[in-house]
């Protein structure tokens, strides 16, 4: 995957970040990265900003009752597959990286 694709993905995610959501996962398997001195100190990158994940049609994933979700129950596309609902251990990590662009895009290599 080249550097350009993530920038597009991040831009899409940024456009969705203001929408509230209710997680389908209760977080019981979510592990918070314990390294506040290194990874905290600023707002998280937009890609992990807490908004719902976008569907390819512009809508986010939903629970069977229609409530928005942070994971996909019936994934089909790449973005849905990598964010599919799972009971596996998951780690929350939202590092502050100064070189990232405001939209979360990657800087060019030196």
């Amino acid at each position, binding site marked *: *995957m*080249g*550097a350009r*694709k*993530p920038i597009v*993905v*991040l831009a899409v*995610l940024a456009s969705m970040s203001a929408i509230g959501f209710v997680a389908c996962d209760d977080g019981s398997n*979510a*592990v918070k*990265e*314990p*390294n506040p001195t*290194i990874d905290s100190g600023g707002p998280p*990158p937009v*890609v*992990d900003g807490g908004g719902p*994940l976008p569907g390819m049609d512009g809508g986010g994933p939903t629970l069977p009752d229609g409530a928005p979700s*942070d*994971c996909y129950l019936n*994934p*089909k596309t*790449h*973005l849905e*597959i*990598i*964010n*599919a609902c*799972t009971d*596996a*251990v*998951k*780690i*929350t*990590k939202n*590092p502050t*990286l*100064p*070189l*990232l662009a405001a939209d*979360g895009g*990657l*800087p060019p*290599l*030196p």
Partner: protein
Amino acid sequence: MTVAVVAAGVGLAKPAEAALCSALGAQPIVYIENGDTQEPLVKKLGAQLIKSATPVRLVYKNRRTCDLALDMYTPNLMMTDAIPIKYIPSPAEDPTWTPLSVSPSCDADAGGVTINLGIGATFLSSCTNLPATPPPGLAIANGPVQSYGFIVPGASSQIAITAQEGYLAYGFPQATGMAPPWVDQALRYSRGPTASTALTCAAAMGLKGSQLKGTVPTGNTSTEVLNFVATSGNPEPTIGLMGTEVYDGARNLVKLLAFKGFGQRYAYFPDFSATSFDKKNVRDGHYLPWAPTPYITRIDAGTGKATDANVQRVIDLVFGARTDADVNGLDQVIAAGLVPECAMGVQRAFDGGDLSLFAPPEPCNCYFDAKAPQSTTKCSKCVDDSTCGAGKCRRGFCEVR
């Protein structure tokens, strides 16, 4: 590629003269060049093959994927040189040898020997030294899936890395990427740009193998990276690239970080958790640094099979197309930490490429779960389809189809 090169006690001088591989015994030999991540499988399968009622000896050389592929494409011969040629000893030759033992070395015939089989460990499309299509008479089949990851010392407090952190840490020199704690280039261990580990990990970070900045050990081997990371006196900024099946055999020495890809909400381990071996997240698409292992061999144009019947036997065993009474290749694949295609639920077309859903023609998810180390399956056992409802009895378990 900007790299520092350091020594890890791995000499590059030609080893002391050993016996000729061709004179070891009467067993037919399959000469293999394989990525060093595939050595555990070669040893496990070779241990069964040498003891088989119809024995075959595997003689192999660890080689970077793009280099071994070029050897097959050219073709080049296997020579006695700085990289040792190893072989699987028979019980008569060494009754104490196991796949966990160091394999003994032998010498190629004067002038070299034909390499029968190349086993790479990533997409050959990532190799910049190869033509777009293989030469006539050479076939490439994608074998079991190999996953890769980022290892840190056991004393490191880190448990996850994001693709963006990897891009900044491995794509920028020294601390200019500002991706703490990985800000010391000397402690970011990598592999050369022809190694599958470098190519697949780089792709997961949005980089090319040639763009990796870090420290490549003198011998450019997984073993060296493992040793450097495990023994680092400065754990926090130390990190290395590693095949997960090599890591699986060294979990007492280092930790593997969970990985969060571009566009992903959480980071995941290749397995269900940091302590399991089920490759769940590789199989369902939550863990992204992986690639199939290409099997490269010469084939007969008429049959489509390998020109050497023993090579075809090895391929069929590894791919699960054949099970001998005394050799079970699929079991060795799973035990080696690889994922057979029949246990995969996703696929991709090139390194770092998007995933799509995959439905193997003859799924083996239940069998994989039953055989993976420390894993169990919830599937029902069966002898035929009659007890599987709408499912299908495969390899002794009711699969969903």
